């Protein structure tokens, strides 16, 4: 399945009933050099739009929202150890966490790449 995007500049890559979540290239570019991430606890359940983590650069801090309702199944310990991965490979090695979807229909409200690109240019 294709990657989905939120208006809050997160991306989701859905495989089966699990989505991998990270921040977009546009988001990391706006933040600048990422120096710290706070990741959620594995096993914790969040509603869509809950604050699930934090990403900080030297100049700014931003909340990372849970894009969909679900339970955290895995977090990226490599990102915690090397937050710069969010800059160097935001859609790959810089992923934040994986979430087991409670309600797959929530994905329908999210943007595809074309919509997000247009959105982020005008944001």
């Amino acid at each position, binding site marked *: 399945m294709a990657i989905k995007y939120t208006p809050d500049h997160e991306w989701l890559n859905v495989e089966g009933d699990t989505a991998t979540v990270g921040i977009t290239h546009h988001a990391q570019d706006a933040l600048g050099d990422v120096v710290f991430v706070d990741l959620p606890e594995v096993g914790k359940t969040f509603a869509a739009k809950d604050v699930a983590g934090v990403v900080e650069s030297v100049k700014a801090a931003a909340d990372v929202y849970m894009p969909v309702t679900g339970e955290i199944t895995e977090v990226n310990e490599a990102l915690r150890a090397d937050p710069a991965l969010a800059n160097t490979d935001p859609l790959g090695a810089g992923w934040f966490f994986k979430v087991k979807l409670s309600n797959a229909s929530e994905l329908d409200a999210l943007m595809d790449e074309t919509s997000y690109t247009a959105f*982020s240019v005008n944001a």
Partner: protein
Amino acid sequence: MDFDLPLQEIAMSASAPDSSLLLTPLNALHLELGARMVPFAGYSMPVQYPAGLMAEHHHTRKAAGLFDVSHMGQLRLVGPDAAAAFESLIPVDVIDLPVGKQRYGLLLNDEGGIIDDLMFFNKGNNEIFVIVNGACKVGDIAHIQAQIGSRCQVIPMPEMALLALQGPQAVTALSRLAPGVEKLVFMTGGNFTVDTGAQKIEVFLTRSGYTGEDGFEISVHKDHAEALARALLAQAEVKPIGLGARNSLRLEAGLCLYGNDIDTTTNPVEANLLWAMQKVRRAGGARAGGFPGATKILAALADSTGAAAPKGTKKRVGLIALERIPVRDHTELQDGQGNKIGEVTSGLLGPTIDKPVAMGYVDAAFSALGTQVVAIVRGKPVPMEVSGMPFVPTRYYRG
């Protein structure tokens, strides 16, 4: 994600420039260099260039960085009474400052609160050159004019740009174009000619800055600012540095940012800026008092040096987090029992020290070096230790 600063930047970069913002004489150069521009002190200013804040910070510490600080206010005080008149506004020794030397000062209000911090320089011939903060300059100039305009000429210099060249290789780069600057020591200055090859540019410069590094601040007519900046950027050591790195550099150097760390609600005693008040202006000095808020400031000073500071007195301190979690501006500080004892006024992950550093105000009882306090970051306690400043050793050139 929910952005604070970056969201504004995204909006800025996507929409037409805010036409109400002022532009420095280097605006076109910033855009050509690919800077990300943000509103600051009423100006459109470069927050970072494509290299990014971290790279710019490190470059300044190891080589030389060029900063556009033309938003800052420059003015001259001229007349035989200028030094004595200016002394009536700041708790600092102006009269005895030798010709050719620069000093830090604080404009105070009648309650002893800090209106602005500034640098001033004795140019000789009854002339004092003053640099104030950009965000405060309109108010400062009006204040100075109103208070001492009858005793000396107060002459704003909006025709002048200000560039800072900072870092251990600043002197190498600048002395190539302006031989002689290498002879200056920290907090001295003078008139120099910068030979760009294509033209000779007259400048007034001081060996000082806001990064903790050796370096220069260069006042130049706006018509020649871009040519000067290009000549400096053509030197192998020099790269352009934005306001983002300027902030991380100054915090590591333990230097206050007006509006964050000091303002009209803080006085020089609380702000731990007593080093800026020479003995001659303190109790027992030859020209003790005689500045706005003197009674209050000198009483606070006597209390702070006595056996015990009065309860409730706050003091500015440096703080280092004991976990690798950045502690930002406005974070609450508590004692071990959950009582609020203060607040962070500036904080970030220091790129050179590679630790979260901050400055803030704590109850004086918690101000001793090594005292542990607790910062509340997103509801979670982060232990911090009161630390001496600067966080990174300064490398001023003292000859």
